[in-house]
């Protein structure tokens, strides 16, 4: 464990690009990546000639950083990497490249691609058939996505919880997505609709699970100094990475995890505690991941809004019934873009993009006036818990 954090406030997020997300995509993963990438580079006021680092996630079916660099006409790059596809792996890789001096302006490209493994429509698409595995998985598997249903059942058992807090996460997401033009699904969700949702892996139903989508996000990172110059020229606020980390526990095989009282989420939160000057009472916005609703309940508890098992009471007490959304202490909004359950399963890049839009003042109809800082917590329980405080600077 380290208390060192020389990177604090030293890297800025200066470019954002997004294709928006759809259940009916008909573009190649490369086309989506390039749309987002060119938008992000342009948004930062830069050109291909300025980009000297390329980070592209290892999303199945997506292209690597070499092909992205070639397709964008980038001259040369002194940093290129292919991190795992949950948002902060790429964000931290790029930030560390900037901070170390390996590169000045690093592009991150994070496409998400529907495949035969998560979509019948994709399974019928001949352009995606090449990604199909010839090996049929077995039903009796509590790993990967299924693990979240198994542990949701354990959470309900241990805490005597009902599905009410799960429903509030899903409804909050849909309410907020209504004002997000990038979102795949924007129809409002009611408690009645949630309760009638098709059961997939009991106790989790269709509304507890993120939406497989096509689309891409892209980001450009640079030094804080240069970020301030860019922001000033554009009349925006600069947005800095204040503290950021990933975390795991060693015993992280999904069905061998000792318990939900000690997961990578706890490791992330403790590391942020050691390095951040901002904490949850200070933030204006909260972006907890909701690949599955159980993950979000755990983030609320583990970052310290409420004790273990306390999410049910907390979410009820901080629910705005007129607006049908969460407002922590009547002030802090949660997943203002609709998150993975409604915008689409971006693996957390949507959460970071939205936080940056809010902090620099470009969130359009969703803008929270004067937002100064945000906590973003992508990832689940096992292999990819992550967290970051972002701030104006």
């Amino acid at each position: 464990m380290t208390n060192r954090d020389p990177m604090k406030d030293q890297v800025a997020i200066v470019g954002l690009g997004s294709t928006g997300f759809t259940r009916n995509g008909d573009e190649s993963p490369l086309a989506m990546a390039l749309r987002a990438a060119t938008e992000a580079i342009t948004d930062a006021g830069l050109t291909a000639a300025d980009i000297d680092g390329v980070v592209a996630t290892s999303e199945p079916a997506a292209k690597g950083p070499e092909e992205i660099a070639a397709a964008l006409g980038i001259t040369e790059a002194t940093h290129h990497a292919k991190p795992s596809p949950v948002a902060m792996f790429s964000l931290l890789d790029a930030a560390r490249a900037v901070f170390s001096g390996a590169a000045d302006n690093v592009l991150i490209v994070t496409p998400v691609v529907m495949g035969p493994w998560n979509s019948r429509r994709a399974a019928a698409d001949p352009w995606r058939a090449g990604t199909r595995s010839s090996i049929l998985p077995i039903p009796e598997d509590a790993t990967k996505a299924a693990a979240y249903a198994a542990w949701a059942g354990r959470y309900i058992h241990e805490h005597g919880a009902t599905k009410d807090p799960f429903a509030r996460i899903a409804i909050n997401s849909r309410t907020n997505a209504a004002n997000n033009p990038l979102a795949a699904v924007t129809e409002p969700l009611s408690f009645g609709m949630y309760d009638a949702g098709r059961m997939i892996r009991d106790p989790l139903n269709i509304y507890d699970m993120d939406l497989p989508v096509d689309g891409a996000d892209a980001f450009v990172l640079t030094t804080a100094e240069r970020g301030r110059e860019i922001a000033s020229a554009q009349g925006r606020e600069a947005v800095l990475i204040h503290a950021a980390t990933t975390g795991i526990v060693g015993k992280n095989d999904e069905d061998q995890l000792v318990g939900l009282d000690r997961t990578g989420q706890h490791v992330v939160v403790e590391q942020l505690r050691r390095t951040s000057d901002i904490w949850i009472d200070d933030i204006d916005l909260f972006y907890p991941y909701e690949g599955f609703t159980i993950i979000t309940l755990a983030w609320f508890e583990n970052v310290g809004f409420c004790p273990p098992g306390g999410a049910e009471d907390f979410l009820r007490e901080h629910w705005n019934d007129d607006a049908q959304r969460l407002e922590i202490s009547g002030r802090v909004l949660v997943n203002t873009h609709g998150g993975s359950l409604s915008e689409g399963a971006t693996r957390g890049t949507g959460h970071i993009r939205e936080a940056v839009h809010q902090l620099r003042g470009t969130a359009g109809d969703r803008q929270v006036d004067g937002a100064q800082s945000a906590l973003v917590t992508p990832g689940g329980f096992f292999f990819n818990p992550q967290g970051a405080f972002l701030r104006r600077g």
Partner: protein
Amino acid sequence: MPADFEDDSATDDTALIARFGGHGIDRDSAAHFRGRLERRLLIHRCDDCGRWHHPPRPMCPACWSWNITPTEVSGRGRIHLLMTLHQGPPASGVDYADGHPVVTVELEEQPALRFTSTVADGFPTDRLEIGTPVTLEWVDRDGTPTPVFGLGEDG
């Protein structure tokens, strides 16, 4: 038992991989899956410190010993995780319309040593819950012995 099971002990690597491909079988878990062909549930145990681990790995994560013996467990434990699948990959004898239970059983050999499977046909639905004692049984799925759990004895 089908005729092609009579010489299971001689099953070569290619046949073993073909039979258990969906489980993600690899060199480190081969002994575990060979054990299934003999209807023995083998879990990796360290010869030096005595601790068990799962899924199968080549070295003991507790003491770094490479003296690992796939060792038969009692098959007794309690349901630790439970979910019911209403959709999933097609499999012989699995009907998602009624909901297919998946149980992660904490084995009595060691705290947090767990094995995931389903329950035997006829498992009492009112006992299908976290904490219920279970015991290992074997069923055939497409001619392959498959470990499942039946109701165990309270106590």
